[in-house]
């Protein structure tokens, strides 16, 4: 593996100096573990992310997504196992790796007392960009994040979604080859989320490798080429969103809601309809390839739900089927 040039280099030089082989993935983790004292947050996971890919970590609170991301970002030492990023070992080449990645942490680390553009400029300074170059890139990124009008605003005065967009813009100041996004759209309204998805899609088109964590199924389905579902520090499934749905869920899902406390009473009566049934606090799910047919059968058995909905199966269902728990609390 070539050692990365120490000084900053732009994209053009990068191509000249760095020729990734098709066989070598950007991230390789084997039996990767993270322990905090007695507690095991990441429990022996195997992951490979190829260059140019959009890869997702999906899982409930406490699954170990952030812990994994932080190890990849070289801000959390590996407890045991093997981890390589760009073929380098985070334990010995942390700074060299961090120079080439962009990080959007779960919690913003913006300086709220400074202006939007100052935050970008200073972050550029941390990567030793010349002042003029930092300003040029900041201006571009403000456009990208649709924050140009707020360039001079103090960050404290921004909305939560704007701060998130600024965090993402800031993570791009060093033109990273790999972008790590820990719950990038949590707290954003639907419109802002769609804008962000579009931006991330564009980055992917430019060849940036994306690794993200999310609670949102639609986000994973929209953005990820491939993902792993994590639960209690372990990977419980892996594949493309479509293949996971095909593998673990049925084509359609029937959602039934019964009047007050009726869900539990109705649940046993659904036995045998479709492939599988799940009782949730607020509704009952019936997994069936033909949802309408399942609904007709439920009606035939004398069940009278308050509402019934047939929809396509989603990653949410995959998660529920794999872990028996709902993903979003």
């Amino acid at each position, binding site marked *: 593996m070539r050692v990365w040039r*120490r*000084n900053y280099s732009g994209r053009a030089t990068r191509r000249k100096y760095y020729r990734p082989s098709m066989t070598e993935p950007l991230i390789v983790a084997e039996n990767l573990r993270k322990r*905090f004292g007695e507690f095991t947050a990441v429990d022996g996971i195997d992951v490979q992310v190829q260059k140019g890919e959009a890869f997702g970590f999906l899982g409930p609170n406490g699954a170990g997504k952030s812990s994994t991301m932080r190890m990849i*970002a070289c*801000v*959390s*030492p590996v407890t045991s196992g093997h981890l390589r990023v760009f073929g380098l070992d985070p334990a010995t080449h*942390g*700074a*060299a790796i*961090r*120079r080439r990645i962009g*990080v959007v*942490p779960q*919690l*913003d*680390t*913006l*300086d*709220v*007392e*400074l202006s939007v553009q*100052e935050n970008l*400029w*200073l*972050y550029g*300074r*941390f*990567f*030793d960009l010349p002042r003029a170059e930092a300003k040029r890139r900041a201006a571009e990124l403000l456009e990208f994040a649709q924050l140009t009008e707020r360039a001079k605003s103090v960050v404290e005065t921004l909305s939560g979604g704007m701060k998130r967009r600024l965090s993402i813009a800031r993570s791009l100041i*060093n033109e990273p080859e790999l972008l790590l996004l820990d719950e990038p759209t949590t707290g954003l309204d639907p419109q802002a989320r769609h804008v962000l998805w579009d931006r991330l899609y564009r980055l992917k088109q430019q060849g940036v490798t994306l690794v993200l964590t999310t609670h949102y199924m639609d986000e994973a389905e929209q953005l990820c080429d491939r993902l792993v579902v994590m639960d209690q520090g372990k990977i419980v499934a892996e594949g493309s969103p479509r293949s996971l749905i095909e593998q673990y869920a049925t084509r359609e899902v029937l959602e039934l809601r019964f009047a007050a406390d009726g869900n539990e009473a109705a649940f046993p009566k659904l036995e045998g309809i479709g492939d599988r049934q799940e009782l949730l606090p607020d509704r009952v799910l019936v997994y069936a390839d033909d949802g309408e047919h399942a609904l007709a059968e439920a009606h035939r058995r004398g069940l009278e739900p308050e509402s019934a909905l047939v929809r396509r199966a989603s990653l949410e269902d995959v998660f529920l089927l794999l872990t028996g728990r709902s993903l979003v609390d």
Partner: protein
Amino acid sequence: MTTPGAFRVASWSLTAYRRFWRLNLLSSLVQPMLYLLGLGVGVGSLVDRNVGSGDVLGSVSYVAFVAPGLLITTAMALGAGESMWPVMGGLTWQRGYHGIAATELEARDIVLGHATWMAVRCGIAAAAVALALACFGETRSWGLIPGVLVAILVGLSFAMPIMAFSIGVKLDGAFAGVQRFLIIPLFLFGGAFYPLTQLPTLVQWIAKFFPLWHGVVVARDFSLGTVDWPGVAGHLAYISVWIAAGIWVATVRLRGKLYP
């Protein structure tokens, strides 16, 4: 050519400082003036009239005796204060340190960046005090210039160990304790406003343990023109040990916090 990480981190503090430097500088000028007037005119006239005070103070007026004390305590208070809440904020509230740690910089750069910035801030504040002191005939002296450099060292000798402390602080109430039980007592009993010999021996030893007194002695030597070079070297070495130890412990602790 790359800019040292410490300078990149310090430029962040500089940007923040630019928002309030005018007010800050003004208070750095006004505060010593008030002390000089209060202590010089009030206490000074009492002391100087007292038969025998000249022996204790080394045959100088009280104002001249106190002036270097003002220079050095100003740096101590600034270095200490700026290494409490701002450091905790960088780790817990604003989390700016975590932001830096995600770039190619690391804990050592943050600690050295803080040291660089504290040197600048203490230098500015001490220079302002020196300027105020130079306005009065009794306190005017070329020795104020090396005195500013000593003040920078003393500022760092408090800033860096206190930074190391602040990195582990869970509740910011601890800082009020540091102010009350360390900084204010040193201010009052650290030899800045009267010779340590006036105090019981045990208190003298405690005061001598901390770097403040050593800085005051050196600064006073310079401003009164009674420099004892080997003594100066010893005091400065002692102060430097505090700075080095502070930097080292702060780096180790910050690394543990930033990269759990």
